[in-house]
């Protein structure tokens, strides 16, 4: 007799648990729906080409004919004062046949690629004037000195360019970073 009763109560217990699980699942699904609605709330008028990260976060400057004709460089200046220096697409080096073939950071008194800046206070960062040489880019027949064009302290250089100078020939290619 008692077995029958326990069986029944077990049965109703599992039914209860199932109901609870269903409820929980519904609740979770409802929450997910709400979340999705929120996530997609601003997708009404999306531009066909949004501004790039550089355009949104930096002020873009160009230094044209810097110290020598056709030596065109760009400076991306962030609101926090850091600058990214690079060769503008109109730089004379890109006009040479084959484009840029090598980059050498060992100019002036030290190898710029060997600089090790550490810590929040940026210890060991070298002070540069606007005419200090950053690096030398070489093409098949020529080489050009790239200068700093702003005054500041050098934080890092783009090491990738040493091994893969052809990156500069593509549309992306930053050169160095300054404080």
């Amino acid at each position: 007799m008692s077995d029958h009763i326990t069986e029944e109560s077990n049965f109703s217990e599992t039914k209860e648990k199932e109901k609870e699980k269903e409820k929980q699942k519904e609740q979770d699904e409802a929450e997910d729906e709400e979340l999705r609605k929120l996530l997609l709330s601003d997708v009404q008028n999306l531009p066909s080409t949004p501004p790039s990260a550089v355009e949104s976060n930096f002020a873009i400057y160009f230094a044209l004919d810097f110290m020598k004709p056709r030596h065109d460089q760009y400076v991306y200046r962030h609101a926090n004062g850091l600058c990214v220096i690079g060769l503008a697409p109109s730089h004379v080096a890109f006009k040479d046949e084959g484009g840029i073939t090598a980059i050498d950071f060992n100019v002036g008194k030290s190898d710029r690629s060997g600089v090790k800046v550490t810590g929040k206070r940026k210890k060991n960062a070298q002070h540069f004037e606007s005419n200090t040489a950053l690096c030398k880019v070489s093409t098949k027949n020529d080489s050009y000195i790239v200068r700093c064009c702003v005054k500041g302290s050098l934080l890092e250089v783009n090491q990738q360019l040493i091994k893969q100078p052809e990156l500069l020939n593509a549309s992306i290619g930053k050169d160095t970073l300054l404080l």
Partner: protein
Amino acid sequence: MVRQDGYQFDSFSLEVSIPPLILQNEASLWSYMQSKYGSEPWFREKIHTGCVSIKDALKFSLINPLEKLLDCKSSLCPFRIRLTYTHTKASEGVAKCSDNGGSCKRRKTGESDSIGEGTLSSSVEDESFDFSKLFPKSENEPCNFSYNCSRTPFYFGGRYLKYSRNVSQTRWIIDDERMGEASVEEIIGIKVLQACGGDNYKFHAAGREDIDVRMLGPGRPFILEVQNTRLVPTEQFANDIEKMINKEENKLVRVNNLKLVGSDGWNLMREGEGEKQKQYAALVWTSRPLKDEDFQQVSSLKDLKVAQRTPIRVLHRRSPLEREKIIHWMKMETVAGSSQYFLLHLCTQAGTYIKEFVHGDLGRTHPSIGSILGCRAEILQLDVTDIKMECFLT
């Protein structure tokens, strides 16, 4: 004065501070007695049964009348009443103690007496110093007396959600101008502070998000510390405050599961902060239309290792380092019928910079979504959808 300030309490804890001069006199008397009667048996017996120090005697005599006056019992509790006795004559012993190798590390100007008490009590323990040399001189001036009362801080724990892309997590003011229209800490802190009559608050959160990033899902755990509350907060109080904050018209911030927490709240929040995973949803644009293979490729990457150099946007205040982070999984879904916009869901290790993972930060984060798909990628908006931590979930 206790009533004047509007303190609500049902018990109090008494602290008494007496001038170093008295301690010094007590100590010199004691060492004198020790040297004179040290060998006597009755003296040694007295030491064993225990002698009451001047400070304790004073406390005992004060507690009963105070209990009657305030109509409640004294016990170890958050509400503290502090009675400070000071004397204009600084103690001679203080100078001698500090020379005697006493470590007086905190030399606060204008607080010489309170330091004096500290060094003296530590010197009294150091039996090598012979106090009997300093003879108590009879004093004619009475002590100065001052009192104040305060409460030890209360802690509220919970989770917050941020619906606005113009609200920072903490107060952010540059050159006297506020950035953003409000801050999460102020929205929550000011309400709580006013409701329980505290002096000030401190907001501690488990991690943070940018001002233009929304915090959705279950929310981010936080602890709000409130100092010197006049009222005693209860569970009901916490519930009421939570409802009040969530009823706000502009719906910038929401609070869930607000309740009083003890010291275990800290441990829950800080435990494994660096390992906890976070989940995000980002609206991403790619420079070329995407196909099914691209979606498959992204979904197939599990526990992807990413090397992130300190992003340029924070490089001015953080060390230049390369940090390896893990992207546990990713999932992409199309959006608004476009082939170049999609919603990227991802789950990452704590400390990963999501924006830089999408656009690559000029090559300083590698790999990035752009490098994986072989095109340019930009992030338009970011939302935090889950903080996988155990605390404050109910």
